[in-house]
């Protein structure tokens, strides 16, 4: 009896196996050849010196690329500092901004869809156009921001992207402006906060701040975690503003790690050395990812866990 019923089941499962792999062929090819193999290759390449001319001229140099990078390289150490500085401001700024906007948009206000579209709008503009536009907004004499500072508030003019001290914060402000996707994800999370919890707390006499802090925030913590992680990963590998606008300047004050890698690979054609920069970037992002995951247990609330 059991034998007979098992046979067709096995055949069915084999068929399902086959169909599943058929569906997954594109993804598997992508995962192998566009993600994990290149990751191994970049590690391998970082131990070589290679000028990028054909497959000859690979010279094994061991850890020499890393030693050079960490000791005599004129750009690498500042690029890490600049990237961390930029990321810190961009992540904090865009998280606070997008959470506030999402909280506001989550209230009963007229024409919500329209306002939501406005905040999402910057994210839909091509990055090059955005940085070209903002470069003009930051113009010292004729830009919007100096118009506001100087004309409206009577403050002295500021160089923004042309000022070595201000270029990273100025670019971080652009990234805050572009945070429309974070707003949409926060909004989705807010709409999934169980209304029954909020109502129960209201009946118990909790004021709106208490309700926000003790119900909304814990329920939102997985989404805060996700947004924080993605914002960190995206901003730590920042390159477009340097490529489109600042070319790393003034001086090296916007020479991000990715841009250093880009310059070594595609301008100096030192591919092995640039691969070592890539690996360092990978490690840098890895450190932050691990820290975030490790600490998340202490502040992330999981539903069904402790209630």
């Amino acid at each position, binding site marked *: 009896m059991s034998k007979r019923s098992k046979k067709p089941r096995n055949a069915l499962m084999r068929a399902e196996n086959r169909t599943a792999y058929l569906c997954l062929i594109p993804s598997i090819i992508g995962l192998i050849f566009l993600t994990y193999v290149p990751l191994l290759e970049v590690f391998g390449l970082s131990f070589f010196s290679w000028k990028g001319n054909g497959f000859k001229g690979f010279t094994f140099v061991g850890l020499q690329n890393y030693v050079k990078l960490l000791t005599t390289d004129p750009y690498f150490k500042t690029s890490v500092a600049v990237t961390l500085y930029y990321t810190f401001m961009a992540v904090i700024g865009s998280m606070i901004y997008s959470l506030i906007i999402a909280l506001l948009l989550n209230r009963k206000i007229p024409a919500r869809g329209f306002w939501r579209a*406005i905040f999402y709008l910057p994210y839909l503009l091509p990055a090059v156009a955005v940085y070209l536009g903002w470069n003009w907004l930051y113009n010292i004499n004729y830009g919007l921001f100096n118009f506001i500072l100087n004309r409206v508030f009577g403050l002295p003019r500021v160089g923004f992207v042309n000022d070595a001290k201000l270029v990273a914060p100025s670019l971080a402000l652009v990234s805050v402006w572009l945070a429309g996707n974070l707003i949409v994800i926060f909004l989705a999370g807010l709409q999934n906060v169980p209304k029954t919890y909020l109502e129960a707390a209201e009946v118990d006499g909790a004021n709106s701040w208490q309700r926000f802090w003790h119900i909304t925030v814990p329920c939102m913590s997985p989404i805060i975690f996700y947004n924080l992680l993605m914002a960190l990963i995206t901003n730590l590998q920042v390159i477009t503003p340097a490529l489109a606008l600042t070319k790393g300047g003034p001086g090296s004050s916007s020479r991000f790690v990715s841009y250093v890698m880009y310059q070594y690979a595609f301008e100096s054609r030192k591919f092995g050395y640039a691969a070592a920069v890539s690996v360092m970037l990978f490690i840098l992002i890895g450190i932050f990812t691990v820290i975030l995951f490790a600490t998340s247990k202490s502040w992330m609330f999981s539903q069904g866990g402790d209630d």
Partner: protein
Amino acid sequence: MEKHASLANRKRRERVINSVCFLLVVFFSALCLLPIWWIFRSSVMSNNQLFANDVPFFPPDWLFSNYPRALQNFDFWTYLKNTMIIIVPSVIAGTVTAVLGGYAFARMRFKGKKFLFTLVIGSMFLPVMVTLIPLYIMWTNVFELNGTYWPLILPYFCGGGAFNIYLIRQFIMTIPRELDEAATIDGAGHFRILISIIMPAIKAAMIVVALLLFTQMWNDLIQQSLYIHDAKKYTIALGLSQFKGSLKQDYSAIMCATCMSFAPGIIFYLLGQKYFVEGIVLTGMKG
């Protein structure tokens, strides 16, 4: 009696808070639009007006003739066509392969499912910049496709991105299994179920994925600059960078070009907006 009063009180307070929130929303959206306004306002002013000392907030006269003038040097339509040649097949292929992958993970049992799914999730955290060099070497030295659009398009035929697969999977998992089972009893195979039951039900998620893929390519500069060198093949991003370099001080023309390249993304969003927010909300974004 007292309870009624406090309820009315609370309702009134709620209304006040909502109005304050509304005012804040209007204020913040004005701030958010201000940069776009300034760029647009600059595109309809002459260079003399732009570099005048009084810096007007409103354009003195609306010089829409700047646009045809900018178009003489900024080949917008060619760039748009080239961008679409890359984006349209990539968006379609990326969405289809993400749906296939998401469907397999959501509905089928197979060997190595857990392992493969871990690989997918893991690749979500892998920074794309790290694999830039090996992929460049692969496309340039192994396949010798540098100079064509293939290195920009082909990756989207390979899974459409981990996040998108995950999104589709989450979405399919919200559809009751009974629907598939009923169809199985009626003799429908997996692909029939996918096309006739699953895909109509996840239309919103598919549009979200399409929009995410669109913005991803729309915002790309680095990949395009690595693989496209011929000015005839330039995309909007490359055309703009090069246009800026060629016209150092003609800011009214540069702002015209900037405004033109703002338009397609806005149109695409308006077309899909209804589905877009619905899709993200329904997915829940929870593990």
